[in-house]
């Protein structure tokens, strides 16, 4: 049977499109989505996966085809056809990636904007309100961005719940300003806009919850924000993603997204907990801690005994 070449090309093209579309939706590579924003990021990723799969199949397909079809026959010393270029073809393959990246850039912009990334308060190096104030008072020069006026990150000015986050080697400390609760784990109610006001105590850390698809560096000397609205009850890991020292891998805790009742119950329990215990915690958290107590505090994250850790740490 003699099938014309352009029909084979057409069938291959359709197959390629179908495979790319299917894989782009069904790669199953991402962890669960725990917020509206996460779902949007995943849709963007799925589109990128679809395009990438298509391009991957085309280029690898061409390579494999060349490998099989265009091998030199033994004893053949002649050259291939002297084709030096083809302007229309080159225009096409310059235009296609240009269009693709244009679409991806616009789509990414849209998703980023929806996540609150271009929120006027947080998207500028210099918050608008502060700038006007500084100008009015003629204090532009005296304005010190390192006194906590500068915020960076993905955040929304309006929030149902604000939590102060302090990142230190090698722990996250969460303070609830409304109730005074201090905790090593983050509890938030489901479907509420939560805003984290983050500071770093020593070195740069990065607050990351994979299920929220959110990450923000926490920088010493600067404030950063991160706002999210989790729509899915569950426990998710909070990971430090910026190298912060030898036990960087152990700097982990949990984000509990709970029903409103469970959240209130937790706040109650912790507010009226033994006052002495709380004072101890506060003392431990706020004072400069020694290497030993820090190691002891976090030995359970690391899954090793404090003594072993201390030994490992000896030559420090």
């Amino acid at each position: 049977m003699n099938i014309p070449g352009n029909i084979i090309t057409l069938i291959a093209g359709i197959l390629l499109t179908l495979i790319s579309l299917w894989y782009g939706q069904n790669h199953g590579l991402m962890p669960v989505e725990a917020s509206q924003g996460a779902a949007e990021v995943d849709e963007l990723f799925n589109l990128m996966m679809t395009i990438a799969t298509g391009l991957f199949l085309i280029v690898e397909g061409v390579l494999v085809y060349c490998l099989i079809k265009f091998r030199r026959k033994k004893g053949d010393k002649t050259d291939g056809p002297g084709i030096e270029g083809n302007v229309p073809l080159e225009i096409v393959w310059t235009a296609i990636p240009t269009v693709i990246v244009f679409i991806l850039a616009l789509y990414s912009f849209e998703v980023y904007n929806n996540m609150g990334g271009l929120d006027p308060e947080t998207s500028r190096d210099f918050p608008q309100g502060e700038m006007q104030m500084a100008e009015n008072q003629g204090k532009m020069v005296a304005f010190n961005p390192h006194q906590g006026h500068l915020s960076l990150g993905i955040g929304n000015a309006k929030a149902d719940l604000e939590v102060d986050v302090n990142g230190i080697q090698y722990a996250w400390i969460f303070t609830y300003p409304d109730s005074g609760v201090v905790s090593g784990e983050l509890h938030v109610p489901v479907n509420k806009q939560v805003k984290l006001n983050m500071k770093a105590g020593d070195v740069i850390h990065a607050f990351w919850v994979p299920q929220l698809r959110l990450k923000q560096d926490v920088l010493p000397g600067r404030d950063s924000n991160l706002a999210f609205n989790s729509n899915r009850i569950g426990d998710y890991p909070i990971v430090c993603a910026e190298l912060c020292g030898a036990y960087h891998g152990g700097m982990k805790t949990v984000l509990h997204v709970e029903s409103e009742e469970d959240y209130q119950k937790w706040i109650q329990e912790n507010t009226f907990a033994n006052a002495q215990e709380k004072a101890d915690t506060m003392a431990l958290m706020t004072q400069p801690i020694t290497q030993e107590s820090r190691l002891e505090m976090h030995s359970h994250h690391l899954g090793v005994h404090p003594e072993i850790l201390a030994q490992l740490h000896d030559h420090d």
Partner: protein
Amino acid sequence: MSTTTVSEKPQHKERKLIDYFTFNTDHKVIGIQYLVTSFLFYFIGGAFAEIVRTELATPDPDIVSPELYNQLFTLHGTIMIFLWIVPAGAAFANYLIPLMIGAEDMAFPRLNAIAFWLVPPGGVLLLSSFLVGAPQSGWTSYPPLSLMSGKWGEEIWIVSVLLLGTSSILGGINFATTILKMRIKDMDLHSMPLFCWAMLATSALILLSTPVLAGALILLSFDLIAGTSFFNPTGGGDPVVYQHLFWFYSHPAVYIMILPFFGVVSEVIPVHSRKPIFGYRAIAYSSLAISFLGLIVWAHHMFTSGTPGWLRMFFMATTMLIAVPTGIKIFSWCATMWGGKIELNSPMLFAMGFVSSFLIGGLTGVMVASVPFDIHVHDTYFIVGHFHYVLFGGSALALFSGFYHWFPKMTGKNYNEGLGQLHFILTFIGLNITFMPMHQLGLMGMNRRIALYDVEFQPLNLLSTAGAYIMAVSTIPFIINVIWSLAKGTQAERNPWRALTIEWQTASPPIIENFEEEPILWSGPYDYGIDDEEEEEESVSDMLADVSAK
């Protein structure tokens, strides 16, 4: 353009083995010095990677202490970048540029020797940091962490990177001048081999960006030693400024590491496909475009640091645009192979392996350019997978491709084809098993630079470690091949591949001053299958084959 305009040249005597251990000004000796040195460091950096992967086979930090683990990955990164890939690019450039453009030597032979002789001290110094506690804040050395963990190790790191950066700058000056000023009469810029275009673009990047790194490191050094606070927040400094300065060099560094090897592949593919390179000008200009765009994308490494929203959008757009010139190159290489007569030997296998793996690095590169997605994967194993596909699947495979391609020219000996192919197969399988699972690990939630991780990540890590061992094994046929070929290999012909670029017109290995007389341009560098006007019956390449048979 003539070859006599540059200052008087050092004379070279007959070459002896000792020349390779001394301050020799012959570009070919320097090229070999660079190549051998860089490969020594490849084995050291590779050994560190194997320890790191062994540690990561299990979730617990059980093989090395967490401090040592951080030291190992810091030095692994530093060595592979500054002591392997960058000097290996310089090795090819030193060896090939004068031969490809018909010059007797580089424009500044003594400067060239100085540039090389900064590398071994830089490398030895870096390794000596183990004596005082090696740096452990990653190859990026972000303050304030780098100011806090081990003062002298960090300082040694700074000084050795400064030495290696200086070497790189001196090399860049030399390459650019040689390419622009020392070509033979008939060779205009558009009849020069594409490797020279790639090195021209690389040199521009080196000269524009490396001094900025030097500035950043000197300031970091002041913070470390003199107690200033350029980057230290406790004294009012800003660690984000360091990140800007660092990435202003270190993003272009990616292109400093890959552009020379784009050039190498553009030489290898046409010869072994017996076809002209497809779209010569498009490939040449896309190198320049990458070079230019490479300078304005650095903040994409900082999408999650202190980078305001509008800035993230700007750097997202510029970063994505790099896909266009890179795409042009990949499509052109494929089109060169299409319809050709492919000789599937070691150089060609590595070149095709390069195209297929670099493609993956390029596709994930566009993904991580997208801000919302990068926020999720930044500082995770997805990034580790991505840049290893670019730098190992890209630079390193192309490096090996060039290594086998020019091995007969450089040594005058033929390598063993079977061992070369075995080397390729093991490397290609190993690299995919090592780096592919990392993408999924990163997406799932595994962050990078950690000695301990959650149990759920173990299966994929185990797979990755197995791949790393295959890559370690792949060096065995390579080493045997080199030693065996040098000792027992048959004498190589002048032009075993029947290539058209003029480095193949001289003896293998080339004589001291490169050519007996000034070489003649027979044809363009890639005129395979194009008849030399109507009068000529046989093709240019056949004519050259006759010449080389003499």
